[in-house]
């Protein structure tokens, strides 16, 4: 069974965001990494980019396919996880910790509440 941490919020396209941190780290869920398997490359967004909620911001590549990653909320990309450049497999091994992809400074915190909580996301992938 996939791990779905309680403290995170989720998008239906399988991104997570941690609303308890500011700026908020974003990654892909354990379920998503298990579906993709074998992530081999992360094409990160540019720091300083303003994005809207649901905007495609970067691409992760597994052996199988290229997958778009969407911003869960609007805001500014303020950091990217440099470690993924040398070790993209972090996304598979530690999807909620070492495998975060970028940090976003939300421009409208109300958007965080519109995302799915753990219970809703758990149902979404059941």
């Amino acid at each position, binding site marked *: 069974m996939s791990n779905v941490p309680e403290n995170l919020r989720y998008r239906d396209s399988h991104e997570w965001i941690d609303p308890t941190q500011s700026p908020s780290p974003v990654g892909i869920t354990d379920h998503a990494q298990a579906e993709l398997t*074998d992530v081999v*490359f992360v094409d990160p967004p540019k720091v300083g980019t303003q994005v809207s909620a649901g905007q495609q911001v970067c691409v992760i590549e597994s*052996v199988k396919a290229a997958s778009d990653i969407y911003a869960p909320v609007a805001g500014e990309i303020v950091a990217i996880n440099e470690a993924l450049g040398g070790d993209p497999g972090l996304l598979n091994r530690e999807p909620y910790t070492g495998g975060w992809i970028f940090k976003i400074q939300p421009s409208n915190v109300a958007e965080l509440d519109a995302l799915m909580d753990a219970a809703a996301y758990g149902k979404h992938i059941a």
Partner: protein
Amino acid sequence: MGARMVPFAGWDMPVQYTGIVDEHKAVRQSVGVFDISHMGQFIVSGAGAEAFLNRVLTNNITKLQPGQGQYTLLLNGLGGVIDDLIAYRTSEREFYLVVNASRIDADWAHLETQLNKDDEVLMANASDFTAGLAIQGPKAREVAAAVFGDAASFPEHNTILVSMTGEGPMWLCGTGYTGEEGFEFFMPMETAEAWFRKIVDAVKAAGGMPCGLGARDTLRLEMGYPLNGNDLSEQRTPLQAGLGFFVDLDKGDFTGREALVAQKAAGLPDKLAAFRMTGAAPPPRPHYPVAFAGEIIGEVCSGTQSPSLGAGIGMAYVPLSAATIGSTLEIEIRGRRFPAEVVKKPFYRKPSV
């Protein structure tokens, strides 16, 4: 078996069971089993079968003794590749052809047009009632011994063993699409489920696992084997695809020969080159643009991340000037160009023990 399914040439096929990289490594290091029931099988027999097949296929089929097989190509009149296949001689007057799933209908239609009224040839399409498994990897022999015991010996490379059983005919072919030792096993559809269970159990007992189409693709591409539809098409000849070794221009006339001779004399317009990404880059994938000396000159035919090499690899048709080993190409991925080097095939060589 927890597989993820995709439609492929009219079949629901497993892309992966556990993960492409794990499955790939199982085949390189121990053994994997692939469902290849989608593949097509034609039985061509009769006093005129040898002459007929030599007239429509590029390799010299008269060189085959009963029990032997060869990789060969079926061409159109312009020398374009309709299909690549393996032809086995099962007896003096009977041949067993294993063809690509996506080309069964095209191959059959073409063969029928090539048949003359006075040819003493019978053709049977066994594709719909034949199931198949490919057992591939260094432990394939162990699996064969566990499953067949003394009832069958291991088919050596490019050989075929046919046995008539109470359940119908079975074909054991010493071939594969992975670069590893192994065999393909074709059997009547009704007997498939029992065989599948038996073989999957034996593969697991040997430390291997069931594998899907995803691993089949990464394994074959590491060897530089072409995939029809990606790397082969009716618009290009086997000479352009680098398959001249399987074309015997001296055996007498065959469909497409004239075009190949003319192309050879005029010089090839382009050639299938193998390339490897040279730095950190996303994996190259089919249809990505390929540039040489700043200009877009073609597109990726096959491309993937090589699990054995940990690097992106691919093949593309490029002008001869760009095809020399060591020349630098650029692969355009989402608007950015990443460098790649033209390399010799195969991409992957088994480490010598």
